[in-house]
């Protein structure tokens, strides 16, 4: 007994899954016989998605769970480049965390000035409405995968300036936040601890 022939892939919009779903709902239409060998030039732009799909499936089945994802997660969590900027008080402790006593570079944390080269935005201070759209721009300029740490009370929820007219009550109203660090300002140890917790999150990440 041979398996029924797969329905033809739709050429335009829609996906294979959609075609299968339709098949369940509608009565089968008689298909003309397909010749065994079809001589056709395979174009690169058709080949690449197909190959991607095939290899993607292969990797998803076999390698990804055991090899590829752990490897890349290991790399990703051990080299987090935070964005080098300072908003307010916490920025000083942020800088202290890179000084000789705490030396975040031990963990591979190196601040970069260009958002294009960063994985991690540490919001180290009070976010005002005036700077909000620039913060979002910076976040959008960072390439995926990216993370955000809200450092200190102001970034978490407005802190002592919560009632002020110009302050965003927590940066999570602007961008998704992964880790919140309490403190006003948090000590450098706390900042490093926050980053290590983020590393734990990345370790369990599946994508």
């Amino acid at each position, binding site marked *: 007994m041979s398996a029924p022939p797969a329905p033809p892939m739709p050429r335009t919009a829609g996906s294979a899954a959609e075609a299968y779903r339709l098949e369940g709902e509608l009565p089968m239409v008689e298909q003309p016989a397909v010749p065994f060998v079809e001589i056709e030039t395979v174009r690169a732009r058709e080949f690449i998605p197909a190959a991607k799909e095939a290899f993607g499936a292969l990797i998803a089945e076999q390698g990804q769970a055991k090899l590829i994802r752990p490897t890349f997660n290991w790399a990703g969590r051990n080299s987090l480049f935070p964005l080098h900027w300072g908003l307010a008080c916490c920025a000083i402790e942020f800088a202290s965390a890179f000084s*000789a006593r705490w030396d975040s570079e031990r963990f591979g944390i190196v601040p970069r000035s260009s958002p294009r*080269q960063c994985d991690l935005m540490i919001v180290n201070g009070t976010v005002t409405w005036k700077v909000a759209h620039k913060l979002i721009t910076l976040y959008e300029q960072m390439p995926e995968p990216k993370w955000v740490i809200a450092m200190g009370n102001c970034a978490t929820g407005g802190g002592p300036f919560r009632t002020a007219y110009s302050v965003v009550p927590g940066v999570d109203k602007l961008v998704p936040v992964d880790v919140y660090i309490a403190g006003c300002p948090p000590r450098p140890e706390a900042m490093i601890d926050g980053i290590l917790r983020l590393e734990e999150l990345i370790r369990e990440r599946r994508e």
Partner: protein
Amino acid sequence: MSSLSLYGVSFDLVHLLLTSIGSVLPYPLDAWITNGTLVLVLSVLVFAAILLAASMINTIVLIWWERKLLGRFMDRRGAMHVGYAGLLQNFADGLKLFRKHTFKPAEADTLGFFSGPTAYMVTSMILFGVLPISTGWNSGSLPLSLLLALAIFSFAPLFIFVSAWSSNNKYSLMGGMRSAAQMIAYEVPLLLAVVAVVIVSGSFDLTTIVTEQQNYWFWGPLFLALVVFVAGMLAEMERIPFDLPEAEAELVEGWNTEYGGMLFAFFMLADYLRGLVGSFLVVLLFLGGWTMPSWVPGALTNFPLAGIFWFLVKTYLVFGLFVWIRASLPRVRTDQLLRVGWNRMIPLSLAAVFLAAALVTVKCLPVFGCLPSPGV
């Protein structure tokens, strides 16, 4: 020589592999598979792969060396938690950058944006095929290998400028302009310093230049040329007293501001490749390459791969000097840099050339021999 060279090694390897495959194959196939052209092509590929692996590993270890050394200069530790003493840190960085989303800013020029870093990386890598590392590590004797190396070395400003221009970012553009101006300004004294070496050694072949240094290394008699060469090299490598194109304080990240992910990794890797090549050249031209003076006990120079070992030791020490300079000097300004380049470096390098010519004329080189070796 050819049987000893790295290229010979790869040829032998491929030949062995193909003949063993051919021995189990029927008639027409075994003749085809052991044919000379195929062996040649494959051995070139194997040679390139060995070079690639060696250069990559060396570059990554070089970055580690710089980070640890810089950490010590700054009273801290540097990377230490990933792998033993942070040795795997740079592999993690590389893998992470590989994993990052590759993108292009909306207003950037596609062709230039992607080809710039790639070409910069490739030209830096080609250099490894040219430079001899030890007696067994070259692609055969090129009579003009020094000129070829320097020619390839000076391609870089073009590609930096292309990628900076096509990024469509004001900081990138300014960085690219500075980079081009600086590299062109320092190309001239660099080459003139090399001319001094060529005059003394009488050859453009790096292998010959090294064997000429068997008795005395050139840093003693050609000290002036060495100073000019190191300064020029610092400018070419864009390291800290001359790192204006990436001056972090004013031009965010200089010409690679808009680059992220793998393209940024290309830039970083190519920068350090050039750092490695620069240190190689200093060692080859002035510090005797893989040779060691005769007063060093034979046990230290006669073990297998001793040439490579000593060559790498010298290279890393020279790079350590560059790191030391980076840790202790501030950055100069563009106009000061160019003024020093055109007004000071060129006269100095001309003086070095004349000095070398005078030394050769009066034949008093052994007097200056820094490490005289009467035995050889």
